[in-house]
C-alpha cells in the first residue's frame, strides 16, 4: 500500500475542484494512506483557472513537481491542456467534455484539445461529457466532479488500489448530507459504471491491435 501516486485536479473556479480534492483526501484518510492536498483559495476561485495537487503516499511536500502527475482529472477541457506539463508521460487523463472559454477569448475547440491530448497520451485519455451525464443521473452538472472521480477510479487501477470505492462512498457520507450525499453517490456510481465500460472497450481495442 505504499505506492506513491500524484493526482492533479484542474478546472475552473466554481466547478467543485476544491470539493473533489477534499473528497479524495477523505477517502484516502479513511483508507489509511498518507495524503497531502494543496489547494488554491480566495480570488483565484472566482471563475479562474484552478489546480489542486493531491499526493498519495507522499510525505509533506505539497506541490506535484512538473512532469510527475500520474493521473489528471480535468473538470474542463482547456484546463487539461493548460496543465499538461504537470503530467508524466503515460499519465492517465480523465477529462470532462466541456469547454468554457474565458470571456472575450476564442480558444481552441474541443476536438483540437482532444486530439492534442491523444497525441501526447494516446490510449490513456478518457474524455466524457460528465456535465450532461451528471445532470441526468443526479439532477445537476454540479455533480460532474464526483462522476469524473468514478471514471478515474474505474479506469486507473493504481488509483483503485489506493482508494477503494467503498471508502469514496464513506467519504461522500462524511462530507455531504441529505440530498447532496445521495446525488453525489449516484453520480459517483454512474461514473464507475461508465469508467469500467470505457476501460473494457479500451482494453479490447488494444488487444485487437
Amino acid at each position, binding site marked *: 500500500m505504499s505506492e506513491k501516486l500524484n493526482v492533479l485536479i484542474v478546472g475552473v473556479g*466554481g466547478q467543485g475542484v476544491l470539493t473533489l480534492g477534499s473528497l479524495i483526501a477523505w477517502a484516502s484518510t479513511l483508507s489509511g494512506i498518507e495524503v497531502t492536498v*494543496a489547494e488554491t*483559495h480566495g*480570488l483565484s476561485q*472566482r*471563475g479562474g483557472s484552478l489546480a489542486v495537487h493531491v499526493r498519495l503516499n*507522499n510525505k509533506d511536500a505539497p506541490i506535484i513537481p512538473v512532469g510527475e502527475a500520474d493521473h489528471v482529472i480535468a473538470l474542463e477541457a482547456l484546463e487539461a*491542456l493548460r496543465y499538461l506539463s504537470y503530467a508524466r*508521460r503515460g499519465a492517465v487523463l480523465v477529462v470532462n467534455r466541456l469547454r468554457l472559454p474565458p470571456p472575450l477569448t476564442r480558444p481552441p475547440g474541443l476536438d483540437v484539445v482532444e486530439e492534442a491530448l491523444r497525441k*501526447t497520451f494516446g490510449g490513456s485519455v478518457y474524455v466524457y461529457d460528465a456535465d450532461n451525464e451528471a445532470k441526468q443521473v443526479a439532477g445537476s452538472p454540479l455533480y460532474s466532479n464526483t462522476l469524473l472521480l468514478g471514471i478515474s477510479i474505474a479506469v486507473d487501477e493504481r488509483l483503485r488500489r489506493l482508494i477503494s470505492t467503498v471508502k469514496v462512498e464513506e467519504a461522500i457520507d462524511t462530507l455531504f448530507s441529505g440530498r447532496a450525499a445521495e446525488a453525489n453517490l449516484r453520480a459517483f456510481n454512474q461514473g464507475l459504471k461508465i469508467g469500467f465500460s470505457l476501460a473494457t472497450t479500451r482494453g479490447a481495442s488494444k488487444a485487437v491491435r
Partner: protein
Amino acid sequence: MVDIPVKALLAEKGSRVLYMGNEAIARGALEAGVCYFAAYPGTPSTEILESVAEVAEDVGVIAEWSVNEKVAYESAYAAAIAGVRSLTAMKHVGLNVAADIFVSSGYSGTKAGFLVVSADDPSAHSSQNEQDNRWYGYLAHIPVVEPSSVREAYKLVKVALGLSEKYQQPVMFRTTTRVSHSRQYVELEDNVTTTRVCKGVFDKDLTRWVLIPAHARLMKERALKVWRTIEEADWGPPLVEVLNPGKRKAIIAPGLAFAYVSESLERLRAWNEVTVLKLNLTVPVPVKPVLDVAGEADEILVVEELDPVVETNVRSVLGKHRAQARVLGKELIPESGELSLDRVLPGIAKFLGVEYTPPPPLRVEEQATVPPRPPVMCPGCPHRMTFYVLKIAANKLKLRNVVYTGDIGCYTLGYQKPFETQMTCFEMGGSIGVAHGISKVVEEPVVAVIGDSTFFHAGIPGSVNIIYNNGRAMIVVLDNYTTAMTGHQPHPGTGLSATGSRAPVVEITDVLKSVGFRVYVINPLRVRDSVETVVKAFQDYLSGGKVAIVSRMRCSLEAYRLSRETGIRLPIYAIDEEKCTGCMACVNLVACPAIVVPEGAKKPLIVEDMCLGCNLCAHVCPFKAIYVKRPGSEGWERLYSERFVEGVG
C-alpha cells in the same frame, strides 16, 4: 463551508481527522485552552477563525470577526495581557494594518499565551504582494515559529503558545498558503479542553502597559532580554532538529522549505551526505545549533522561501562567532515566488555537486493557444452591474476620463475590460485616500470604488478626510451584504456575528451621512432606475456636492445559495436566435461567464446552468433578443435586494 464535516474540529482524542492547515491551527489552539479568537478575513488565513466560529458556542470560546486586523490584534492581545490565552489571525498584509500595536506588544509583552498567526502568500496567489513577514519578528522582537506541514502546524501551535507564556512574549506563528491551504490527516493528541481560563484579571501595571517614552525604554530592555534568552537557549525538537550531524555540507531548512529539501535529498539519494538543520523556530535564528552545524560543515546552504531572512541571520551569527563555514542561499534558491521541488532540487544538486538534469516537460503545440483564465466576476455579480451603471451614467453626462480608484475585493476584477473601473489597487481602504490625492491634482472627475467590508475596515478615516480637507472625490460603496472574496464572512453591516447570531446593523449610509456626504442609494438589479440616480449623483458632484453612492445588491453566489435553501427560483435568460443579429453587444459589454460563443458559431448563447438571472444582458441587447426563459419564483428579487430574507438565517 460545505467541505468541512460538521464539528470535525471537536473530534475526540485519538481520532484521525483530515484538516486543512488552518483548521489544524484552530484545533491546536482549542486544545491548548485559547479562549479568545479575533481576526479579519484574508486569504490564506480565513478558515482559522471561520472554523473556530462554527464551534465557539459549543465549547464556550469567544470568536469575533473584527472590523480590521488592527482591532483584531488589539482585542486578542488585550485578553492575553489580562491573563486569557488568545489568538489573532491575519494574512501577511493584514499585519501591516496591525503593525503599530504589533510592535508595541513586542515591548510590553504578554501574560497569558498569545499568538499572532501570519499567513503569508508566496507567489501572491491572492494578494497584492508576497512580503515575507518574518522580518516583522526582528522589528518587534517577537519570535517566529514556522511549521513545515499541516500536521506540524497542529502540534506547534501548542508549543508556540507555551513559548509565549513562558517568555511572556507574543509569538508569531507564520504559515504560508501551502500550509494553511493544504490538507493532511492529523492524529489528535488531546481532547479540546473543558477547563480553559476565560476570565482574566487586568493588573494596573502602568510601567508595562503605558508606553510613554520612559516606560518604552524600560520595555525595550525587557524585550531584548527575552530576545537574547531565546536566541541562546539550547533548543531541541520540535522547534529545532539536527538530522544526520557531522557532515561537511549542511542545509538549513526553515519551515515549509524542509518538505522540499527532504524530497530533494530523497530524489538525489543524498541524505547520507549532508547534515540538515530543520528549523521551526526561525526568528531569532537559534545560535547554538547554527554554530554546532558550522563547526563540522565547510559549506552551508540555506533553503528558504522568499527573502533571505534566516540566511542573513546565519551569516551574522557566524560572523560574530568567527565561524569559517561558507554560507550560500539565494545564489541557488529563488528569492521570489513559491518554492516547489522543481525550483529547489537543481540548487541543492549544485550545492552537493551532484549531476541533475530535470526531465523535459511534456508540451504540445496547442498548449500555447490556451488563453489565460484570470478570475472573473461571476454570473449575476452585482459589481458588474454597478460598473455598467457607472459607465453609462458618466457617458450620458459626456464625462470623459473619469478616474476610478480601486480597492481590495472581488470588485478589483473591474480593472479588466470592458469595465476598467478599477484603475488603482494598493491596499485595504486605499481607494478613498488615493482618490482624494488624485482629485487634488487633476481636473477630471474622481470616483473611489470600495466594498462594504473594506469600507468598514479602512474606508471610514479616508471618508472623513475628504470632508475635512474639502476633497473632490466621490465615493461608491459596493454593499453586497457580505465579505465575498474570502468566502462570505459577515461584517458590521450584515446584522450577523461571526457565530451566526443576530448583531446590530451598522448602516453604511448612516456613517457616510453623519460624516457629511449626500448619499444616493441604488439597487443595480434595477438598471434603468440606477442609471437615473447615478446621473443625478454625478450632477450633484459636478456642482460641488460631497457625494457618495451606496449600491446595494447581494452577492450572486449568496443569492444563489439562498435560492437553493428557500426553493425560490431565480430567473434564467436565453437568447432568441431569430432576433439575435450576432452583434455581440452582450458578450462585449457584459463579459458574463454564462454568455458564450460556441465553436464556429456567429451568435452567442446563455449557458442556462450558469445564468443567475441578473438581467443585465437583456438590458444591454439592442435587439431585445434576450428573454426570460424560466421566470423566477414570486418575490425572487428579494434574494438579491433584501439584507434579511425571511425564514433564512
